């Protein structure tokens, strides 16, 4: 990036925010239509009852919770890249962290809906919040679902803090380049930023500490989510490895999602200079790591199921690999732990089509992983007499589709209204302009 100048950076990145063309609007329209359909399906479910979904006894949780876990997982990579890599002073992070963080925030918007969608009486969802309720009864702090409420809420708030804080100096840049109502908006978001040394000093401090807080948080959130399952006695759920297993899986899927989004982004907005092939390669390498961890977790699960000599556990495992849901299971094994190993080959991890394709597969695989964990375990629990199967109905599917539309709705707005690459941090990576040869140290 050394050939770039500060003003060049401004120009390149801001040009992505020029008023959009027809293709963009068509895309947005299509997205909104799907979203509307999803909302209709949800309304239908609220009016007629959860019975319209495929949920049943004994499979009381299915793809709503799958989606919840999936989206929370997606969120994780954002924080990983923006916070953890920041603490490690990883220089290549500058180009991609803004997008990754946006993904985090929007993924959480989406994830946050599902616990409400899957409630039998969604109009009482606020009973899960800690506030003094009539009768002096509070929430049950021993329930993993309450841990979820706290973890996800905290995670959402902190990520947004982090996201908007990171935006402020960039907003100042945009503010100075725009006029009219746009100027007003960006001026508001810039919060009167003027880049004085004092502002910078406190800003950097705050940013550092937010990163330091976000790092343990992100680990905790998916651990808590995993405990929704691990804390139960359900064969296939009750497992000590779940926390690390889920965190790795989360980052695995998150990275895949980031790649899936970055590739079109840099193409459309011509940001090759900022989101280089190198960046994607780094991500691919990370995916190798997480893929290996996930694969290892699968193996441990299997081993424990056998070694524990616990009949329900073992029967559950054999059911997984042979039963009605064997296809999702094998998809999950293949896409999550085997396919990513292709990234060991440099030609593959450096070719955009391969990257894109494999990233998509991992997304599918990770969704299937959650589906398999949730549904197969519930379908074959302790009492053979009440074993049962789950098949999604149009409602489940519409709502799921709607949730994706909801996520991309926000993402589309983000791509147009905010700088998809952090201007300031890119500049920071450039050598500052100097007269003297030796520069400034």
């Amino acid at each position, binding site marked *: 990036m050394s050939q770039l*100048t*500060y*003003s060049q950076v*401004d120009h390149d990145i801001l040009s992505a925010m020029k008023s959009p063309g027809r293709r963009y609007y068509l895309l947005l329209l299509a997205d909104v239509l799907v979203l509307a359909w999803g909302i209709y399906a949800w309304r239908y479910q609220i009016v007629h009852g959860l019975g319209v979904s495929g949920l049943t006894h004994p499979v009381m949780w299915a793809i709503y919770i799958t989606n919840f876990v999936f989206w929370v997982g997606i969120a994780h990579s954002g924080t990983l890249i923006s916070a953890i890599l920041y603490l490690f002073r990883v220089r290549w992070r500058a180009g991609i962290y803004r997008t990754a963080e946006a993904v985090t925030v929007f993924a959480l918007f989406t994830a946050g809906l599902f616990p409400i969608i899957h409630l039998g009486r969604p109009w009482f969802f606020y009973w899960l919040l*800690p506030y003094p309720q009539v*009768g*002096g*009864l*509070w*929430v049950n*702090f*021993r329930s993993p679902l*309450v*841990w979820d409420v*706290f*973890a996800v*809420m*905290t995670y959402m*708030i*902190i990520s947004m*803090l982090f996201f908007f*804080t990171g935006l*402020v*100096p960039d907003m*100042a*840049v945009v*503010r*100075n*380049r725009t006029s009219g109502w746009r100027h007003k908006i960006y001026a508001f978001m810039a*919060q*009167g*930023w*003027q*880049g*004085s*040394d*004092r502002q*910078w*000093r*406190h*800003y*950097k*401090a*705050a940013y550092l*500490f*937010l990163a330091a*807080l976000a790092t*343990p*948080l992100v680990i*905790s959130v998916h651990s*808590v989510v995993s405990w929704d399952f691990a804390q139960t006695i359900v064969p296939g759920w009750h497992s000590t490895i779940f926390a690390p297993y889920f965190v790795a899986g989360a980052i695995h899927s998150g990275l895949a999602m980031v790649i899936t989004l970055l590739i079109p982004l840099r193409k459309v907005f011509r940001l090759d200079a900022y989101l280089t092939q190198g960046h994607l390669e780094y991500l691919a390498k990370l995916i190798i790591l997480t893929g290996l961890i996930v694969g290892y977790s699968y193996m441990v699960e299997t081993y424990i199921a056998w070694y524990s000599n616990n009949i329900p556990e073992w029967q559950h495992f054999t059911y997984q690999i042979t039963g009605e849901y064997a296809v999702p299971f094998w998809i999950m094994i293949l896409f999550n732990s085997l396919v990513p190993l292709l990234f060991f080959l440099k030609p593959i991890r450096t070719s955009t089509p391969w990257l894109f394709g494999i990233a998509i597969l991992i997304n599918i695989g990770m969704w299937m992983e959650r589906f398999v964990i949730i549904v197969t375990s519930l379908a074959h629990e302790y009492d053979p007499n009440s074993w049962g199967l789950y098949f999604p109905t149009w409602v489940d599917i519409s709502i799921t589709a709607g949730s994706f539309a909801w996520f991309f709705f926000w993402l589309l707005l983000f791509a147009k209204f905010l700088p998809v690459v952090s201007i*300031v941090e890119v*500049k920071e990576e450039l050598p*500052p*302009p*100097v*007269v*003297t040869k030796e520069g*400034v*140290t």
Partner: protein
Amino acid sequence: MAESNSGLVGSFPHLDSLLHAIENLKKTGYRELQALSPIPHHAIDAALEKPTSPVRVFTLIGCLLGSITGFVLTIATSLHYPLITGGKPIVSIPPFLIIVFELTILFGGLLTLGGMLWNARLPRVHIVPAYNPRFSEDRFGLWVPCDEKEFDEVTRLLESAGAEQVTPATR
């Protein structure tokens, strides 16, 4: 600190010339300097010899507050309406620790932000006239508070350091 309202703003295309200017001005006894830059740079902080930010204290307080709230909330509410679930004790610390942890992070984050806003005097409604939009792009600014009779000297110092333009401005 009693800041006088009149002063000069020098605009530098290069970082090192800004740093020279700061050096020279400090030598001649101008201490109340303020740099305006598109990026943060440790060299600037070093030159201006500003103390480290107190935001960390806010973070610490926030975290402590969070943990205390967590403990009080979980334990007090459980005791208020004691209901046995799953044979577990009414006050079961291990699960409560999760709440404590999350609240620690949450409050920590919120106060960190608060600390930043407070110390950086943000959000502010109007921007100082001294501010030049290019300071957000590729120019480094240095604001020197001084009264008319000092203008010439300051201007000379700035330009000698390499300021491409020097304009009078009020804060």
